[in-house]
């Protein structure tokens, strides 16, 4: 149930007492509540769980994580070069 997937906000509106949005999951569009994400704007990626947006995803942090993992790969190659010498 917590295996929520990221989707992209394509429109924002109000329904009843709640701030809602349409989210695009690679072609499939669904409705979700963004009441607790006042800063959310069209184009943001968010994680949806039970029709509720949990948080806005940070592209910067995603890049930083990937970069840190790439560094491991770079070190490994260096290691192998040393062994090869």
């Amino acid at each position, binding site marked *: *149930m*917590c*295996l*929520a*997937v*990221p989707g992209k906000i394509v429109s924002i509106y109000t329904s*009843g*007492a*709640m701030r809602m949005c349409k989210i695009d999951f690679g072609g499939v569009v*669904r*409705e*979700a*509540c963004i*009441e*607790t*994400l*006042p800063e959310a704007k069209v184009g943001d*990626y968010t*994680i949806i*769980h*039970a*029709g*509720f947006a*949990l*948080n806005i*995803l*940070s*592209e910067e*942090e*995603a*890049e*930083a*994580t*990937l970069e840190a*993992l*790439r560094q*491991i*790969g770079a070190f*490994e190659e260096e290691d192998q070069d040393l062994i090869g010498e």
Partner: protein
Amino acid sequence: MRFTDEFRDASMVKTVLEEIRRTVTRPWVLMEICGGQTHAIMRYGLDQLLPPEVELVHGPGCPVCVTPLELIDKALAIAARPDVIFTSFGDMLRVPGSQADLFSIRARGGQVRVVYSPLDAVRIAQENPDHQVVFFAIGFETTAPANAASVIQAKALGLKNYSILASHVCVPPAMHAILGSPANRIQGFLAAGHVCSVMGTWEYPPIAAQYQVPIVVTGFEPLDLLNGILMTLRQLEAGKAGVENAYPRVVTERGNVAAQKMILQVFEPCDRQWRGIGLIPMSGLGLRAEMEEFDAEKRFSVSGIQTRESELCIAGQVLQGLKKPHHCPAFGRQCTPETPLGAPMVSSEGACSAYFRYHREEA
């Protein structure tokens, strides 16, 4: 950036696995709390790619699995009433109660509807003013804001025919229960990324310090899981026990503060029974007194419930990480997804269903 494919890159998965192999010098036991992570680990076969020193034990993070039997029996009694439309996440339909499940109540004419979001249940209440609409509000902190929002929405709309059967559970008290048990084997935790996206990481440093265990907030893609495992192992090998965040694109230290406020507007901490595990003090969220009118347990007095668990099912031990699903004598024999004896075999987050689906019969 699509936030998914990048974290499934096969060559980077290999690199991180290599690094894990280089890091480990002796056996370690880690627990992934969240059942969604258990399934992701099995789906990608990560458990089979890790070095033999690293044992992954599956935690209680399956809300369907830990919903107390008594409450399921209550749900069945309420759902059978002709004046009720009973709404639930799909996973709950096949969870065995003492005598039946929601699916069989529906087959016998009960109005049981699957909803994707609790706000859909509120809409059903609006559309059916002559029926009582009840939502089975189960879940961890991840689901609590959505369930709270449904009550706030119903209140704003002045609905008199909406109520919830609340069975919320929280992760940190369960970690205390696991770590405080004399039978505990867990040396490090992968904390559930989506619980933390709501709650942040601020609840964990006291737990890491009290029990001297590393806790690493972890996501759900293969690289996220391996990165979380690597960070936990690095801490263990260095004798450290801190809280780290391997999922910072989704999780911040404070979490979603507005969502935390919304939870506390509707719910308050309470003692909660966990199916198969028992009572964990202050581990649940119950409706606040001022939200009492939305409490299905108060609206429908259900009495005379006598619970009866399967004698074969060892779900409680599986959920606490003391046994693996294939250690259960009924696994794959009397108990399959078609004929489940316990909730972990039906839930899409249950460890037994993961072992069955991905053929970990004798791992």
